[in-house]
Every structure is written in C-alpha cells, then in structure tokens.
C-alpha cells in the first residue's frame, strides 16, 4: 500500500516534466493540475501534396473522424501522440498523394499579454517507400 501511495504522491513531479518537455495537457494524466490553466486546444488541418502542389485535404466521414481523433490525442498527450494511423489512412485513400503536411494550431492563453494566441507548427511526412521487391 505504501508503494502505491508514494507513487501517487510523487507522480505530479513527473507530470510537471511531461507538461514542460512533451507539451502534455496539464489537465490530463492525473497530475492534479486540472483548472491550473485554461484547457489546451490543438486544431489540426491536413494538406496533401500531389504533383508537387500542396492543397488542403477536405476530410469527410471516416477521415474526418480520424483527424478529430488525432487532434484530441495531440491536445491531451502532446508530442506523445503519434499520427501514424491518420497518415496511413490518408496515403491509402489516394495513391497520387506524395506527401502530407499536418498543420497544428495550438491555441492558448498567453500569460504575458493575457490574450488568446495561436502557435502554428507544420509537420511534413513523405509517402513511405515500399520495401524493395514488393
């Protein structure tokens, strides 16, 4: 019992590190930091490259659900959220897609100005090369 207790009491120290280093949402993962700051919000837009041209992907149905799922995971887990499932679905949906760019917009309350601000980040993923001989 003491082991469980000590782990629970020490966990928030680890949680502080996860928030600082991996951008985990302070509200998540039992760090006792709910309501310590406005909840994180990451919006995800997808752009795809065909024949060297980057255009927005109009995600519908199942694809839209996967984008929303990744946005929620990215909001909660920060850098620990992996877009692998989303990327696989996008590349499988259209063989002409050469690359995918995920545009992540992190909306937060800036403490210095006390205004809501956005920080954009672009992640680029090339179509995986099929294994030789396939």
């Amino acid at each position, binding site marked *: *019992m*003491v082991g*469980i*207790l000590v782990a*629970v*009491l020490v966990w*928030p120290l680890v949680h*502080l590190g996860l928030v600082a280093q991996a951008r985990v949402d*302070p*509200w*998540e*993962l*039992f*760090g*006792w*930091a*709910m*309501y*310590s*700051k*406005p909840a994180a919000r990451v919006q995800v837009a997808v752009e795809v490259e065909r024949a060297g041209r980057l255009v927005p992907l109009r995600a519908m149905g199942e694809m839209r659900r996967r984008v929303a*799922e990744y946005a*929620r*995971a990215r909001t*909660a*887990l920060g850098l620990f959220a992996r877009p692998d499932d989303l990327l696989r679905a996008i590349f499988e949906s259209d063989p002409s897609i050469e690359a995918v760019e995920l545009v992540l917009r992190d*909306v937060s*309350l800036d*403490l210095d*100005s*006390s*205004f*809501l*601000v*956005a920080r954009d980040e672009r992640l680029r993923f090339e179509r995986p090369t099929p294994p030789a001989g396939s």
Partner: protein
Amino acid sequence: MGGWLAWTGSDDDDVALDKLRGVRRLVLITLALEGWAALRYVPYSSSPGFYGAIALALGVCALLGWRDRFAAGSVRGALILELVMVVCAFPENGNHQYLAIVWLSLIALARFGVEGASRRASADEARVALQAIRWIVVGGLAWSGVMKLRYGYWLGGEFLSFRIATDPGFAWIFAPLVPDAELARLVALENRIGAGPFRAQAPLLVVASNLTWLAEIVLPAGLLWARTRRLALLGSLLLMAAIQAGAREFFFAGLMVGGLLLFDARDRMRIYVPIAGAGYLVWLLWSDLAAWLGGGATP
C-alpha cells in the same frame, strides 16, 4: 513507515472497518454511475455496446460489493473493468477514473474478513488503507494548489477571467465579486484567437483567485495536525463546495468529499454514501428530469 502514515489520523478497529466499507461502496457506486454517464461522450458514445456492457458489469459489482461477503470479488472485478475502460478510451479519461483505480487498489489490498480471528488483521489493514487514502486527499489538494501557483494563471486572476468569459456557470458564480461593467466586458469576449485581455481587473476576483491556491496548500497541512484537523476539514469541505459550484466535476468531487470525511473521527460514510449516490442519480437524470418537468408544465 507507520509513523508518518498515521499523521492523517488513526481509527479504532470498528471505525476503520466501517469507514473502509463506506469508501468501498462509494467508489463502486461512483464507477457504476460514471460508466453510464460516460456513454454520452466521445469516445464512449462511439462504442455504446462495449462501454455499456462495462457499465452494466460495474453496476453488478456495485450491487454485490455492498455486502461484505462479496466485497473482495466485486472490488477486484471493478478494478479490472475500470482498467479495461481506461486503457480502451485512453487518453480520453477523467482524472476521477485514475483516482478511483488507486483507491480501489488500496481497498483490494485490505482483507474483508470482519468476523472471527481475521477481524484484528482486517482492521489493521483497513486502518493502513484509510491512512493511505487520506494521504492521497492531502497530497491531491496540496498539489492542486502548487500547480495553480506553478502555471501562474491564478496570480492575476487570468484563469477565472477566462472561465467567466467562456462558461456561463462561472460567470453566474463570480458575478457578486465582479463589477457589472467588468463582468459585461469579460462575457463579451469570445473564445477565439486574438480575444482578450483576460487579466482580472476586479480586485475581489484577484483576491478570490489567490485565496484558492493558498487554501489548497494550507488546508491539507491543517488536516495533518490533530489540533487543527476539524477546522481544516470544515474549511476543505467549504473549499470543495466553492470549487464545485463553478467546476461541476461531480464524480471527482463525490470521491474527494468522501475522502475528506474519512478525516472525521466518526464514520460519516454511512450517511454520505446514500447522499452521494442520490446526488449522482439526480445529476445523471437532470436533463431528463428538466425535460419532463418542463414538458409537464407546458399545456
């Protein structure tokens, strides 16, 4: 080890067994009803059959776990079911689910034999489990205050201003502390990029904001000292009520209030558990009740 564990208090055999029975029932009821409530939200709503079956099984655990005879199996069953639920829905879990898992684990490690030769051993284990649960309450409250201090959004009242602007419930609660013009300014702010400033301009709101994190650090320290425990308990319950008036995290609050009541020398769980259960049910059915009452009033 036993020394510092007992800083949160130590119970007689009968009281320890009664309190552990009470907290066991509270956690099982909380998980059963939370399982149903969760079905309204993503991702639980996307697999209603799976999560509904888990909620049903948690309900069976809560019913069987009411009796000491079936307590051990019910607690372990509920623990496994809740772990499955958390893993399947990860990372979209409520923090009360983690809290319940930790408490259930502590309860599961205590024996439930309350008769005959095992009674003494059961009471000893119940006492340690209760001390650990009380420490988690102390640590949780204190960490909540430290986190508010660490992230800085409570020092200038930014967090409360933001919530007043975006949550009508917060606006209603804090209206008495904020001048009309400032309240109107905050409520008019939209939850969009470029909106602001959210820095509090009402002195009373800044005071309330700073008193919150200060109380979250000071009150748990008071719970550790026998001479201040009753006062700190009363203060902590009032603080919890004040926070919940705005936050409305009912399952988390239900567990935390139960944990706080364990600091009372007497067994308060006997009264609290039915009240909490009824409160959960009313909240769960609130929208249906409101619709029904509204429908009844309409000619």
